[in-house]
């Protein structure tokens, strides 16, 4: 299915770049895989959370006595059971983990700040009793005015969520509390001069709605406490080590006393990067001395966990007749939700960074509103900034009679260029991606009636950071490959492929697992498209340590210097000086290891750097039903620089998945609130993500411009395909109906209204 373009020559690898069956695949399709909710522990209790029916209210009192008195109820917790923490102080890191906020998000303290905000939790001997019990908890509220729109919430007279929040990063220092937590800026060149140089300047406003990650598995966890106060937690998460850090700080517990095991995970897309019910399950378990399981319903997931931000944008871009982008200016307001911390830095970096715009300026505002605190979603913060910029670049190209791909090629960043936030690019593949678009038959394919074609390109700087891995050789010559990163997109397969490639043995000899927090060094989240890059490096290091030990073992056996032993194709081989020494295979060496010095294992703990930018472009054809405004996606091709596709099938899967999520984001997905800011669509029936029949087969073109900083040239691939997808789909809609559309989602009522307005204008 996938087409792979490797401009810098192919590879002779045996496992890297080949599709090998996914080690977790069969268990998943047969239902055997164990997800968060699949664990049962003898004596366990069932936890349930009482949630606020109000979007913004003061909590006057909570009376849990009736619930506690109910037969079968073993414990009740409220914010009194969760430690409070002081507010984080500047200077703030790019991602603020403020335990003052986390404590209040997992359990409302002075106020409830969104519909679904947790106010109390119960553990009982059955789910039914727990459900009945939470209804017996009496909460007195004083309902306050709520606010949802980020731009309105940013106004000086807006109702304020946090009386103790003062905008950071503005001069003079504010004396009045505000919903704006901070403003981030990026600037270079001379904006006025840049706009003066342009032959055409377009300024537009855009908006996008918060969207849900759409993982299939709701959050679920089970916590147990032992006599010494140590806690074991089994949970569906994208990062159990990060969970341990958060829980230890939040609950004032020693890290070593929290052991977290990541269950098999049914999707996360950024949504499972923080804690929700886990601290409550732990507290309930500590109070009762019994295991406590908490599984969220789908409706709880929608009401109370973080989706991505909604946004409002104002953007102005200038272009010369030859397509040179001379200047760009953008302002964006992000709906952080109840607590600060939306991904504004990524917005600033995303707007102009695919292009060598000499003069540009971007500002992003992190604004609190009465919605759940946002979480990450696949390329957090980038997609909503890519959409306005790409839309305006497309419009400029169209008005100036230029080809949209040529315009990008004219302005494309290359090695040595810098992003607006100051990332200096190494070897990157934007030009190669754009050339692949031009060569593809989709680009020039004819369109039918009511059809339109869209194009967009997106930039994403993937992650590196902390990762650990261990490779353990067993007596029989098989190996365990342990990492600390939950496998969401097929990483076990890729880890195994890289280790097998290093060792020169069959992948089937290696069993990849995800180790718990007690068994391995720290590993940051499976997020930021970092796992195959960073954890992959740790796996390669650990495997090389195994190889070095095996060479030493052979040297000892042969009684020759280790420098005279090389490793090739799964065996230790003495150099040509030793003609009569026969090579020793991995299996032979494994058999003799324990009696000749001890077990053989390698491990690696690293802070991976050298990650690079990934570019992804998309071509989309849509057809609009002019009578109903219904959009159907007819053809969709994704072009992405993967550096090196370790497992091409899963790279293709990432590209297709990102495209599908982008189609949903662009066309139908939105949270619908009533006048009281209560969520109306709390399930997938009315939260309209695409279903299989909504999308065409998504074609993929994998471009390989290897990243020289990774042993196999990997770039992160998970997030980039979502960055440009909504922009490309929206552009296709614009071209199909012949007018600009600026407010996502482009749902049928909006398209129909636009068509009717157009018809009225034509009369």
């Amino acid at each position, binding site marked *: 299915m996938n087409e792979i373009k490797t401009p810098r020559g192919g590879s002779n690898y045996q496992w890297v770049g080949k599709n090998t069956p996914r080690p977790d695949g069969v268990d998943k399709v047969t239902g*055997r895989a*164990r997800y968060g909710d*699949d*664990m*049962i*522990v*003898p004596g*366990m209790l*069932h936890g349930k959370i009482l949630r606020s029916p109000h979007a913004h209210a003061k909590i006057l009192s909570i009376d849990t006595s009736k619930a506690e008195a109910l037969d079968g109820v073993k414990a009740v917790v409220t914010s009194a059971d969760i430690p409070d923490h002081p507010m984080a102080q500047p200077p703030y890191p790019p991602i603020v983990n403020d335990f003052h906020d986390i404590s209040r998000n997992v359990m409302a303290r002075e106020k409830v700040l969104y519909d679904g905000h947790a106010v109390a939790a119960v553990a009982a*001997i*059955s*789910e*039914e009793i*727990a*459900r009945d019990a939470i209804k017996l908890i009496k909460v007195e509220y004083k309902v306050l005015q709520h606010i949802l729109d980020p731009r309105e919430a940013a106004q000086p007279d807006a109702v304020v969520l946090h009386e103790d929040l003062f905008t950071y990063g503005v001069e003079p220092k504010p004396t009045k509390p505000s919903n704006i937590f901070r403003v981030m800026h990026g600037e270079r060149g001379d904006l006025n001069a840049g706009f003066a140089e342009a032959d055409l300047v377009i300024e537009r406003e855009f908006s996008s709605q918060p969207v849900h990650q759409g993982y299939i598995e709701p959050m679920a966890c*089970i916590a*147990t406490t032992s006599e010494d106060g140590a806690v*074991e937690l*089994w949970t569906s998460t994208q990062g159990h080590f990060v969970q341990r850090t958060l829980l230890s700080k939040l609950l004032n517990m020693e890290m070593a006393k929290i052991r977290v095991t990541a269950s098999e995970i049914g999707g996360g897309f950024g949504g499972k990067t923080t804690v929700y019910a886990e601290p409550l399950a732990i507290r309930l378990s500590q109070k009762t001395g019994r295991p406590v399981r908490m599984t969220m319903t789908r409706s709880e997931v929608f009401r109370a966990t973080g989706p991505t931000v909604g946004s409002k944008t104002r953007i102005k871009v200038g272009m010369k007749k030859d397509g040179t982008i001379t200047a760009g200016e953008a302002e964006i307001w992000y709906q952080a939700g109840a607590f600060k911390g939306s991904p504004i830095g990524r917005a600033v970096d995303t707007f102009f960074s695919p292009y060598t715009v000499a003069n540009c300026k971007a500002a992003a505002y992190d604004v609190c509103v009465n919605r759940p605190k946002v979480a990450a979603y696949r390329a957090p913060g980038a997609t909503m900034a890519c959409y306005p910029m790409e839309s305006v670049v497309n419009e400029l190209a169209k008005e100036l009679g230029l080809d949209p791909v040529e315009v990008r090629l004219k302005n494309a960043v290359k090695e040595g260029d810098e992003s607006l936030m100051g990332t200096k690019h190494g070897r990157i593949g934007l030009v190669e991606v754009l050339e692949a678009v031009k060569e593809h038959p989709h680009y020039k394919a004819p369109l039918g009636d009511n059809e339109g074609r869209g194009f967009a390109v997106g930039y994403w700087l993937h992650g590196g950071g902390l990762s650990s891995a261990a490779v353990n050789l067993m007596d029989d010559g098989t190996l365990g490959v342990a990492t600390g990163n939950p496998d969401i997109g097929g990483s076990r397969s890729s880890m195994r492929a890289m280790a097998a490639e290093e060792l020169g043995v069959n992948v089937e000899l290696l069993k990849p697992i995800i180790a718990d927090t007690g068994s391995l060094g720290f590993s940051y989240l499976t997020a930021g498209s970092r796992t195959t890059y960073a954890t992959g490096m740790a796996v390669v290091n650990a495997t090389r340590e195994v190889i070095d030990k095996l060479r030493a073992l052979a040297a000892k056996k042969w009684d020759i210097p280790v420098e005279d032993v090389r490793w090739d194709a799964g065996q230790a081989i003495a150099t040509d000086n030793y003609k009569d020494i026969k090579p020793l295979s991995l299996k032979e060496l494994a058999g003799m290891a324990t009696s000749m010095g001890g077990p053989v294992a390698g491990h690696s703990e690293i802070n991976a750097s050298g990650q690079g930018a990934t570019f992804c472009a998309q071509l989309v054809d849509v057809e609009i039903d002019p*009578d*109903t*405004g*219904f959009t*159907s996606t007819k053809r969709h091709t994704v072009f992405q620089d993967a550096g090196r596709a370790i497992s091409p099938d899963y790279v293709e899967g990432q590209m297709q998945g990102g495209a599908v999520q982008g189609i949903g984001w662009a*066309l*139908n997905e939105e949270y*619908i609130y009533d006048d009281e800011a209560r969520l*109306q*669509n709390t399930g*997938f*029936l*009315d939260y*309209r993500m*695409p*279903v299989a*029949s*909504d999308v065409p087969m998504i074609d993929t073109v994998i471009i390989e411009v290897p990243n020289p900083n990774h042993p196999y040239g990997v770039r992160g691939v998970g997030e980039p395909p979502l960055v440009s997808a909504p922009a490309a789909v929206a552009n296709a809609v614009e071209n199909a109906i012949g007018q600009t559309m600026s407010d996502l989602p482009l*749902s*049928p*009522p909006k398209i*129909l*209204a636009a068509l*009717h307005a157009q018809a009225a204008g034509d009369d």
Partner: protein
Amino acid sequence: MTDRHAGSGLESRGTKTLQDMNYEAPTSVEAAVAALAAADDEAHIFAGGTDLLVQLREEMIRPSLFVDIKRIIETRTITVDDTHVRIGAAVTGAELSEHDAAKALLPGVVEAVELIGSAQVQGRATVGGNLCNASPAADSVPALIAAGAFAQIAGPNGLRVVAVEDLLAGPSRTNLSGNEFVVSLDIPKPTTRSADAYLRFIPRTEMDIAVVGAGAAVTLDADGTCTAARLALGAVAPTARLVPAAATAMIGKKIDDTVLASVAAAARDACNPIDDKRGTVAFRIHVAGVLAIRAVKIAIERAEAK
């Protein structure tokens, strides 16, 4: 820790205990009526359960009794005689779509039922359940109304017959008394050059609930003049409704674009929708007209092909 797959499967998963809820599965209409008569207000007829079990889980209902009607032969059969097609109330979507005669005679009703849910839901969801759940957006209902269906209702005083459009009282409400249930749906057998059709609008392609639904049935004479017609709409008012003005616009005429424009106008006039999570008032009214025209056109094509 152990896990479910490793064998400690005896642990209760703690789902709702069914202790204070009874279940009966009578094998005759009379026994079902008697069971309902003996029960309190919280007794529910149980067909496929695809609405009921969702409502139970969401605690919208706290039933005292489920009367499962699937063992009553009359509710489970499809019969075709000289004048009528009779569809048992507990016939599932999957069964109906495999019934060749029903498909040939009532393509509109069958395509409406086939739109309900997915393959999995189709195996359980029934025609009677779709009707009696009384959702304004239920897919089969406009099609049944267009096809002129009557409900055969069993109760303490025997059977009564009510036109489908008269059975609906409002969102989630029917005119059935607590002791009654629908045994079957009787649809006049279409004559030659007579056919029906159903269309719905959803923003996706499946697994969604109608934002607008339109069922149409037309009868043409030899030269193409419309001699009988019915149009019904779903999701645009508290109940699915018949649009008599649309029929008036068609009957006695050859259905050309002018007639179709009047049909659309009549459809739009009949709308009394709400703004909700599924659609807006303006959108629903406009699309009701669009779907009315399209459904009528398909019905005509089918009638002409006969």
